[in-house]
Each structure stands twice: as structure tokens, then as C-alpha cells.
């Protein structure tokens, strides 16, 4: 009886003991910064002024949400970049995944080749595209000239809207392969029998797509969109290299704005508050997205 009790107890603490190094590491590198940065966001720590700081409550949050026009502008800019990027990545990713799912030969090689952009770091991608967008010597303008479409002096960053279009183009080029891979995996997990049965019932390809592929791919699409949404709210490297938030502040994203506040102005507490506002925003968006999915599924059910 006593032996059984010891064994049970051991069963309880043993997994915890094995997991403790990982838990400790997580606590150190994730929990501590999270808690500390929240604590910091309630202070007025400004490294440019000095190491002393004091408690200011929610003042930084009030400033971020109601007074800081530049930050609020960057929220708008981020949304303006996210919306078309996500839509294009989803549509293109789905299209390519569907084409690849039908390829009978060379699929692994084509998939690997198409996935290359996603393997390039955002900074490297931005540097390459900055050169390609270059005035006079840039590859795009020179190709455009040969096709009779563009002048070599066409400036891809001349106006705020054109700059946003250029950023979206690079973003879509860079991340469509990710969406493609996620959706391709989703398509391949759909049982072939469903398509065979549909075919036997005389369904046309678009009917199979509409009634089988799309409904069964919804969850995968939702996961892909959510991952990309979270990624896009962190958009920084591409902006830093490609536009530096310009012209003016037209492409200044929330992540880039937070970088400027924290690492150029040294307003550490305010930057921490901005980070929490961003995290809060992403959380709300994700929850709304999941809630909408559930409602749709309930209706469909």
C-alpha cells in the first residue's frame, strides 16, 4: 500500500522534474520579459533622462491609445499593408497549392523552388528588392522599359500610396510560399475518395472545389491567415531596409514606430506600453477571427 502511494507520488512529480529545465528556460526567456515589460509599461523609465523612474499607472497606455497621432497613424498604415497582403497571399497561395496538388510529375522540386522566397530573411529580401526597385539601374524599371511599360526613372517610392503598393508586393512575394505550403498540406490531407465520389456523381471540378476542397480547407486557411496576421503586425525588417517608414510616415508600421520610440528616443516604458497595445490588438483580432469562424461553422452545421 505504502509502495503504491510512493509510486503515485513519484508519478506526479517525475514529469514535472523532467520538464523543469524547459519550464525554467521558458520562465526566464518568455515569462520574465513579459512580466517585466508590463511592469515597465506602468513606469516612466526614459533612458535618455537617466536610470531613475517612477510609477505612472496607465498614463503610457492613455497616451498611446488617445494622444499619440504618430502611433495611431502607424496602426492605420499597418492595417493598410496587412489587408491587401493577407488577401493576395491567401489567393495566390491557394491557387498555386491547387495547381501543385494536381501536378503529377516534379511536384517536390517545383514546391521546393517556389518555397525559396520564404526561406530568405526579410532583411535580405528587402535589400534585394530595394536594388531591383532602383531608379535607372533597377531590374524592374529596365525590364519595364524593354517591355515599353515603364521609364527607367520610375520611382517606386515616390508617393505614399506607391510606397505601400511596393511594400505589399515584396511582402506578397516573400510570404506567399508559406501560405502555399500550408494550404498544399491541407489539400493533400483531404481524402481522395471524396473527389472520386463527387466525380462519380457527375460533379464538375469547380463544384468539387466549392463543395469539398474549400469547406475542408477552412481550418487550414484560418490557421495560415492567423499566423500571417500575427507575423504582419510585427513587420519591421522589410520596412527598415526598404522605406524606413517613408515617404513621410506612409509605411511606418506599429513595430517600426515602437522601435523608434524605444531605441531612438529611449522611452523604454512608453515603448513597452506600445508593445502591449500591439499584443492586445493582435489578441483581439485573433479572437474575433476565431469567433467568426465558429459562428460560420455553427451556421454551416
Amino acid at each position, binding site marked *: 500500500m505504502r509502495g503504491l502511494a510512493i509510486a503515485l507520488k513519484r508519478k506526479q512529480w517525475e514529469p514535472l522534474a523532467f520538464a523543469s529545465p524547459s519550464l525554467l528556460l521558458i520562465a526566464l526567456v518568455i515569462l520574465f520579459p513579459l512580466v517585466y515589460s508590463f511592469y515597465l509599461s506602468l513606469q516612466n523609465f*526614459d*533612458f535618455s*533622462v*537617466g536610470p531613475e523612474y517612477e510609477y505612472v499607472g496607465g498614463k503610457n497606455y492613455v497616451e498611446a491609445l488617445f494622444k499619440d497621432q504618430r502611433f495611431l497613424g502607424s496602426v492605420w498604415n499597418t492595417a493598410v499593408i496587412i489587408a491587401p497582403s493577407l488577401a493576395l497571399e491567401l489567393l495566390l497561395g491557394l491557387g498555386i497549392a491547387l495547381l501543385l496538388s494536381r501536378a503529377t510529375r516534379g511536384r517536390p522540386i517545383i514546391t521546393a523552388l517556389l518555397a525559396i522566397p520564404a526561406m530568405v530573411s526579410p532583411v535580405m529580401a528587402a535589400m534585394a528588392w530595394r536594388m531591383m526597385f532602383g531608379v535607372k539601374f533597377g531590374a524592374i524599371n529596365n525590364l519595364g522599359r524593354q517591355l515599353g511599360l515603364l521609364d527607367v*526613372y520610375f520611382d517606386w517610392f515616390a508617393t505614399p500610396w506607391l510606397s505601400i503598393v511596393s511594400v505589399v508586393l515584396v511582402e506578397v512575394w516573400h510570404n506567399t510560399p508559406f501560405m502555399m505550403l500550408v494550404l498544399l498540406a491541407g489539400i493533400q490531407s483531404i481524402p481522395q475518395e471524396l473527389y472520386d465520389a463527387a466525380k462519380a456523381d457527375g460533379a464538375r471540378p469547380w463544384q468539387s472545389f466549392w463543395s469539398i476542397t474549400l469547406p475542408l480547407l477552412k481550418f487550414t486557411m484560418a490557421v495560415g491567415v492567423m499566423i500571417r496576421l500575427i507575423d504582419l503586425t510585427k513587420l519591421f525588417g522589410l520596412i527598415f531596409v526598404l522605406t524606413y517608414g*517613408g515617404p*513621410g*510616415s506612409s509605411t511606418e508600421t506599429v513595430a517600426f514606430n515602437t522601435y523608434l520610440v524605444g*531605441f531612438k528616443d*529611449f522611452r523604454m516604458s512608453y515603448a513597452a506600453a506600445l508593445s502591449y497595445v500591439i499584443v492586445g490588438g493582435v489578441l483581439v483580432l485573433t479572437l474575433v477571427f476565431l469567433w467568426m469562424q465558429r459562428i460560420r461553422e455553427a451556421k454551416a452545421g
Partner: protein
Amino acid sequence: MRRAALLIVAVIVLVGLVAAFGSRVPLAGAARPYEGQTIRAVVNAEYVKYSLSLIEKDLYDKLGVKIETEVIPLDSFVAKTLLEFNSGSSPWDLVMFGPSNMPDYGRHFEPLEPWVEKLKLDFAMDDIVPVFAKVMLRYQGKLVSMPYDGDIHIMYWNKVAFDRADNKKKFKAKYGYDLQPPKTWKQWDEAAEFFHGWGWDGTDKKLFGAGASYKPSASGFSYHWWRQRFFAYGGQYFDANMKPLINTAAGVRALEEMVRTIQYYPPGVLLFESEEPKTLLIKGEVPLLHSWTSTGKRVGNPAESVIVGKAGFGLVPGAEIDGKVIHRPAITPGRGMAVSKYSKKKEVTMKVLEFISLPDQSLKIVMDAKTIMDPWRVSHLRSPIFRKAFPDADKYLDAIEQSFPFLVPDPVIPAADEYQRKLSFEITEALAKRKSPKEALDTAAAEWDKVTDRRGRDKQKAQWGEKMAEMKALGIEYHADWAAKAK
């Protein structure tokens, strides 16, 4: 016998003492007295690292010291270095910095004067250009650094554009006066308008009116282009009570002109940093540029320039006030070198600082086109070798010297970098036509007030008071009426 034994012991002790401590005091004139020592330097660009490599052999031969240089990119340099310093430490011995940020850096630097005494250092202070000696070297009255890069703006023009008879004729017909390198901003804008969009060099190429850098990165390129008009129109950073004056008539006029004429500048100018317009100038695609003095060395480098011997050098334009042209070129902002207060190798770093600042060693650095470091010693400007380094190098160096009496420094008070960045950002908001010039400058002024409040208004006011007095001594004062009457 006993006395002889004592004598032997005394001699042994003496020899031991010399062996133990003698090696720690380098003998004057000894070859490589610091053999085996390496110091760590921090700089903000690869070309600055390269500049140090030009003297490393001589440095090693003379002192036996090696320099290990870390490069922190320009845009994050101030943030990263000040983060280290403000936390009370530094992995670096020798520190490069922007002199306009001296109020933020100065307390982390080791004062030089006690070491000058102790090590008999000679920084050849009399040979430093007076305006650089005034704004680059001291923190709270103490000598803490040496210049490394004497950055100012001068004007460059392509003589082909200005000397062609056909161009002269067309210009006079359109504007009613002779085509010449501009002396005022009005003339500059008209020249830019005239030259834009056609082959002013006699070819059928589509060329541009003038060059500029308008990206708000680093400490703000667009700010440097705005401020030279602003001060010529009677502007000043703050009044005596720290109320920003950047959104006054002078500032608005300067920015309105920039917004109106941006169409005569090359595509992409909103995201140009320092080097893009220089390249356009030396490739013969813009006829006019005011820029850093390092541009002149690129102009004279036949490996990349097509305008060697065809370029003119002169003062940045100004404004005609009551019949007199007022020029206000900028110190923009240069580089200094200092020894970190937290260094554990202060003595050897002091010797290195002295060595790299020597007239002959620093000449090697400022003469090399690849370093982008500019002359800061009088002897650099008068050097017979430098004056013959490329065609018209003498005229280039004379143009630099002619600019010295008119130079306007940055707002050298704590948070200078932040003030400049906030303003530069708003200038680009106006240039991108997202705000009107007045609206952009009002926002910048409000941001400046916030910075002042964060840093402590009284503290800022006291520091600005000193700087304002220094600027007044140089003849730079606020003139509310100049913006309206400037021609």
C-alpha cells in the same frame, strides 16, 4: 665582509625593482612601447573602420598597438552606444561620436588635459580649424575629444551645365539674368527648374535639376537640407525660453520652397541618404548639389567621376537681405574621437588618440576618397600634397575654408539627436505632401516641446542659453523680418 654582503643584497633588490616596475613605464622614444596591446574602437560605418586601417601599420610600428574596430551601423549607433554608456560601462576604449551629441556623450568621456600633462601628449591644438575647436571638443568646459571628420556643406556644380553658351542664352531669356552658380536660394531654385528634364550637357539624355538627400534616417538628412535655408531666412532653433522657432516664417518659407521644387530633383530623392546625390553629381546627372565636403574627393576621383576638372566648388547659397547675401552653411555634424571613461586601457588609448590626430597621420585619413572623412586641421587645407591630389583640389579646399566664417552648428544641447530626428521626420511629411509645411512644422515644434519637457525644461534652457550666446557671438540670431524680405 658584512658590508659587501649588504651591498650585494641592495644591488639585487634594486635590479629586482627595476625589472618589476621599469617595464610598466614606457620609455620615451622606445620602439613599440605598448607592444602586444590591443584597444577596442567603435565607429558608425565600414568606411570609418577603413580609415583607421590607413594608419594601423604606422601605429603598430611606432607604439606596438593594434586597434580592433567594431562597426555599429549609422542608424542605430547613438542608441546602442548610449545604452552601453548610460548603464555605466563600455566595451570600447576609443569611441567615435557625433559632436552635436556631445551633451549626451560628454560625461562618459575621459578628460584629456590631465593625460596631456602626464604623458606629454601633443594634440597640435593650434592647428585645429577654430570653428571645429569651438564646437567639437569640449564638455562642460573640459577638453574630452579630438575631431576626426570635419563635416560641413559646400556647393558643387557641373561647369558643363553653367558654361555652355546655349544654356546661358536660354537661361537669360527665361529668367532675365545671367546663368551662374547660384548665390541665393532663389537662384538655386530657378537653376534647378531650368536644368530639370533635359540634356543640359548637350546630349539628349533626361537629366535632373539638382541633388539632395531627404531621407529622415540617422539624425535626419532632410533636416540638414532645410536648416541651411531656414537660417539664411533669419531662423533660430529656440528663443531664450526654449520656445521652438522652427515653425516661424523662416521655417515655413524654407520648407515651402523645398516642397515646391522637389519636382526638379531626381526620382527617389525622398529616400536618398548621403551618397546617392553625390553619385548623381559625379556621373554628370545633376548640375548642382550642396553636400558634405567628402563629395569633392569623389568629384576628383577619375575611377568613378566623369566631371574631374569640370566641377566648381563654392559657398552654399544664402539669402539676400538688405542688399547683402547671408550664407548659413551647416556643420553636419562631423565626427569626433574620445577615450571612454570606462576604459581599462586609458593610457594606451590616449596615445592612440594622439597618434591618429597627428597632422601627418590625420592627413592620410582625410585625403583618402574612400574614407569620407573631411579635413579639420588648417594644415590639411594648406597641405601641398592635398592641394594637388586631383584637378582643382586647391579650389575645393579653398571653398571649404571660405565657408568657415558662416557655419551654423546643430542645436548642441542634450537630446540634439532627438530634436533633429523629430524635425526631419516632419519635414519629410511635408515633402511627401502628407501635411502642409506649416502643419508639419507646428507638429515638429510641439514634439520639440515634449522633448524639452521630458529632459527638464530648466536644464535644457540653461544649456541652450550658453549655446545661443555662442551662436550670437558668431552672428547667428533670430530675425523675424528676414523671411519676408529675403530675396
